């Protein structure tokens, strides 16, 4: 027994040590709408670089509060462009490191097949009790949803049927559980490889709301972390862009 154990230890120890020497870790704060692609990206990144990306998902506003108060993140993948800019002017992020990693698309979605038509006329007919959105004060997708309703002249009429999720993930949860019949969510939550994966949806034309450009930024804490720099580099690579596009995001 001792021989097996020591042999095991003898073969594993160098491996562990070499791994520790080569592979780094990067703590990433990820906007909730980017959860699905980021998990795939982290796997892709680990394979390409050997580095480990540790992901936290949440709303951009919450991450701002946490980062301003010393949260241990190296990178923020924001749901907007203004939060990274504010973090840079606050001195919490590295100037010049901000870039757009994806452009989001808004979708009106129902868990029931056939409920949402591809023109969004279901909103006009009003045959629903609840329309879920994410909090417009904190989530860009929520603000975009209100803009679409305003453009359709429905904001006042539907005001009393709006239910707000804390983030776009919760808005999705309200609709997926059937508690809200309809909801404005991120296309990436119900889309893969060119089609809607479940339920029914109206892909809101991009010109109906301000662009949902999502920026990444290197935080001061991560500026000397090789794994953080490698991940930002990876996000701009062709394989990463191809992967991001599979989830329905626009990439340049």
């Amino acid at each position, binding site marked *: 027994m001792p021989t097996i154990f020591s042999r095991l230890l003898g073969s594993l120890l160098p491996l562990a040590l070499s791994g520790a020497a080569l592979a780094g870790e990067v703590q990433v704060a990820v906007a909730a709408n980017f959860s699905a692609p980021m998990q795939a990206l982290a796997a892709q990144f680990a394979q390409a670089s050997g580095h480990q990306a540790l992901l936290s998902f949440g709303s951009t506003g919450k991450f701002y509060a946490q980062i301003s108060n010393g949260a241990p993140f190296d990178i923020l993948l924001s749901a907007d462009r203004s939060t990274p800019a504010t973090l840079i002017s606050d001195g919490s992020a590295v100037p010049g490191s901000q870039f757009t990693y994806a452009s989001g698309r808004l979708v009106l979605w129902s868990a029931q097949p056939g409920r949402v038509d591809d023109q969004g006329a279901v909103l006009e007919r009003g045959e629903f009790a*609840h329309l879920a959105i994410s909090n417009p004060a904190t989530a860009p997708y929520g603000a975009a949803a209100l803009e679409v309703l305003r453009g359709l002249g429905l904001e006042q009429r539907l005001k009393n049927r709006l239910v707000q999720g804390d983030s776009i993930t919760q808005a999705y949860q309200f609709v997926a*559980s059937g508690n809200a019949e309809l909801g404005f969510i991120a296309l990436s939550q119900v889309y893969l490889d060119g089609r809607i994966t479940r339920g029914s949806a109206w892909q809101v034309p991009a010109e109906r709301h301000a662009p949902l450009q999502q920026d990444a930024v290197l935080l001061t804490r991560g500026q000397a972390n090789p794994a953080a720099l490698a991940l930002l580099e990876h996000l701009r690579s062709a394989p990463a862009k191809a992967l991001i596009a599979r989830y329905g995001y626009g990439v340049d």
Partner: protein
Amino acid sequence: MSAEDLGAIWLTLKLATLVTLLLLLLGTPLAWWLARTRSPWKTPIAALVAMPLVLPPTVMGFYLLLLLGPQGPLGQLTQALGLGLLPFSFAGLVLASMLYSLPFVVQPLQNAFAAIGPRPLEVAATLRASPWDSFRHVVLPLARPGFISASVLGFAHTVGEFGVVLMIGGNIPDKTRVVAVQIYDHVEAMQYANAHVLAGCLLLFSFVVLLVLNRQQRKIVHD
């Protein structure tokens, strides 16, 4: 404070008052039974009552969202009764808060009832008091400190509730946007000044609640 902040405070007070009254009404017989019974069901029921003490509120909120939803058994029941669906409504918050604050009302009452013991009731019975008479004139006065603790804790705990409301509330002004959610919104929207005002109010409130409870308990010890 904005009209929205005041609306959130008013809604929270309304919710906590209603929940406390309903829980006192339902919790008293339940606590009485738990304090007196020798049934084998006592331990499992007591464990169920205590569950919200250890369950993360998000777990409760998540299950309630599924149970009360259109596919859930409770959701189908409320729809069949013509009540509609409870998530995103004030009634839904009342139900969720009652489950969440149940142990905070039942346990102080149960302890108070248990502390009285069988003796005063036996004496009352020999004086020909009916069970209802002895409950009203013997148990209720003796258990008064328990009722006060139960009311204060039930009320305060409902005011402080956040996770469950976040999961099933839908953040609707004057219906489900309680103070705790309003503070969270202010923080997320980076309106820290507004958050401070409301958070300060809650801090003061919690302190006063604990002060009242401690005084009450000291008075009992002195009496």
